[in-house]
């Protein structure tokens, strides 16, 4: 047993104040976190094991719930409104193992390399692919942030808060959280905010006629209302895009690195990711059921933007459920704005070799914080532009995420198969088969989308409702 471990296992105090004080501030916070974890790991009591579990989980749950972002909530709401309770219920359940499998790889990569995704691509595959991946991420993150502020401002408007006020307040809140909380507290506060994502599940009890039979039948029939059309392909891609997206890979890997997880912690990271994937899918299905049983089939004069969906939803279930839905929408936008801006900060800093950690104090992390804060402010401003096609923009963002996902997945799989990087933690054969099958499925879906754009008459219906 190594000498430091012996001290820890014998519950002896570690007087390392001097050593800690010599460390840079960001590393000092992480070292203190790791010391707590080391003590809990060596205690071997039931309580310490439970405490250790709760200390080590976080990035997986956070990334998955942040993925049920305002854009995601709007997409699921539009999905239920357009296609009802059918194909997309079993489809979302299929997405659970897909999301878990993809994100689990980032846990291993981060814990083994102690480097973020952007840094690994940049350094291992060169500047061209590094800049491509970073550019793709930054643009997609910016567009996604716009959808978060669409959700926040629409949700807050239900409570009578003017859009401009809610946009400003939430930009400031996100900036304060990033700037003044250190990683462990930042993660705990973010998880607390993320917990409100579950508000969509109890909302099901407010439905006047719970669609239990439709829900069960959906697994037997996989019914697609209106058949396979351009719109169906588009919405399918949007649902894929909101379940697995490039920013999630970057976010979780950087988060694992900033938290300081090691090879020893991988199994905790895997459980964390599994819990997160399960919660994500449960919430997604709840939202599809909510609008699928209230808004689906309703004459909406050809528009199914979130404003219109909420109006119809309120008419069917009443004001209180509408307010809960709006609260969920605001929370979804808020938590995702936190996660996505962190993802931009991490990725840019990793690529350009800047200091990179949520543990960085403001004075040392100007380059780390400022780009994502600018993106936040601009994205919030865009949502205030009158008559911007926000409903369509939302689905387009998800579609773009799906289009770039095969590229992001390819780099992930290359890295996970790189013995020079992963050592004996490389992907196993079955993991590669699943990984490349997911890439193949994404490319097939994108090809179908391409076909529906280039030859729209191939399908029965055109994209016109959005």
């Amino acid at each position, binding site marked *: 047993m*190594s*000498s*430091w471990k012996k*001290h820890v296992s014998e519950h*002896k*105090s*570690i*007087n*390392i104040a001097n*050593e800690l004080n010599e460390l840079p501030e960001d*590393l000092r916070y*992480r*070292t203190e976190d*790791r*010391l707590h974890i*080391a003590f809990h790991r060596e205690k071997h009591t039931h309580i310490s094991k439970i405490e250790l579990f709760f200390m080590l989980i976080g990035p997986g749950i956070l990334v998955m719930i942040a993925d049920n972002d305002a854009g995601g909530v709007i997409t699921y709401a539009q999905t239920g409104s357009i296609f009802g309770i059918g194909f997309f219920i079993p489809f979302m359940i299929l997405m659970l193992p897909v999301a878990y499998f993809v994100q689990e790889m980032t846990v291993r990569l981060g*814990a083994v390399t*102690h*480097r973020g995704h952007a*840094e*690994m691509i940049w*350094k*291992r*595959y*060169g500047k061209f*692919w590094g800049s*491509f991946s970073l550019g793709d991420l930054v643009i997609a993150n910016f567009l996604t942030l716009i959808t978060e502020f669409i959700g926040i401002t629409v949700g807050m408007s239900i409570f009578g808060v003017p859009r401009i006020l809610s946009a400003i307040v939430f930009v400031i809140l996100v900036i304060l959280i990033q700037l003044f909380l250190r990683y462990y507290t930042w993660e705990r506060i973010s998880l607390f905010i993320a917990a409100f994502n579950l508000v969509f599940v109890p909302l099901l009890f407010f439905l006047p006629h719970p669609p239990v039979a439709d829900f069960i039948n959906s697994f037997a029939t996989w019914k697609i209302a209106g058949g396979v059309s351009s719109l169906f392909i588009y919405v399918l891609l949007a649902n894929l895009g909101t379940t697995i997206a490039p920013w999630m890979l970057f976010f979780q890997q950087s988060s694992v690195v900033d938290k*300081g*997880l*090691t090879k020893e912690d991988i199994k905790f990271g895997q459980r964390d990711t599994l819990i997160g994937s399960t919660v994500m899918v449960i919430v997604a299905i709840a939202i599809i059921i909510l609008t699928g049983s209230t808004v689906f089939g309703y004459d909406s004069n050809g528009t199914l933007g979130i404003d219109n969906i909420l109006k119809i939803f309120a008419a069917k279930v009443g004001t209180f459920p509408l307010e809960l839905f709006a609260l969920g929408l605001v929370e979804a936008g808020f938590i995702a704005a936190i996660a996505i801006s962190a993802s931009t900060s991490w990725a840019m800093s990793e690529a350009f*070799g800047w200091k990179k950690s949520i543990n960085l104090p403001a004075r040392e992390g100007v380059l780390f914080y400022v780009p994502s804060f600018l993106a936040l402010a601009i994205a919030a401003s865009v949502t205030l532009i009158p008559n911007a*096609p926000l409903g*369509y923009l939302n689905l*387009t963002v998800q*579609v*773009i995420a799906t*289009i*770039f996902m*095969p*590229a992001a997945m*390819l780099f992930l799989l*290359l890295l996970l198969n*790189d013995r*020079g990087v992963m050592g004996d933690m490389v992907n196993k054969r079955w993991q590669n088969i699943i990984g490349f099958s997911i890439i193949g499925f994404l*490319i097939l879906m*994108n090809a179908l*989308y*391409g076909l529906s*754009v*280039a030859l729209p008459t191939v399908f029965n219906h055109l*994209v016109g409702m*959005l």
Partner: protein
Amino acid sequence: MSVEKKEKTIENGSEFREFMVSQGLEDYSKIPVEKVKFSPRIKIAFWFLRVYIVIMVLLVIIGFSHVI
């Protein structure tokens, strides 16, 4: 400092460094990462990726222009 107190502390810098290394708490920006040499298979995959991206970006622009 008493003998007992000495036993209960980690004052040795090497022990602390050992802890830091075991917990991945090094400054990784100072450890270089070697650029990978592209095998023919990876080169083909990357060319496929370039073509795929160009086609998909064009299709998204066409799709979006239909709506605008």
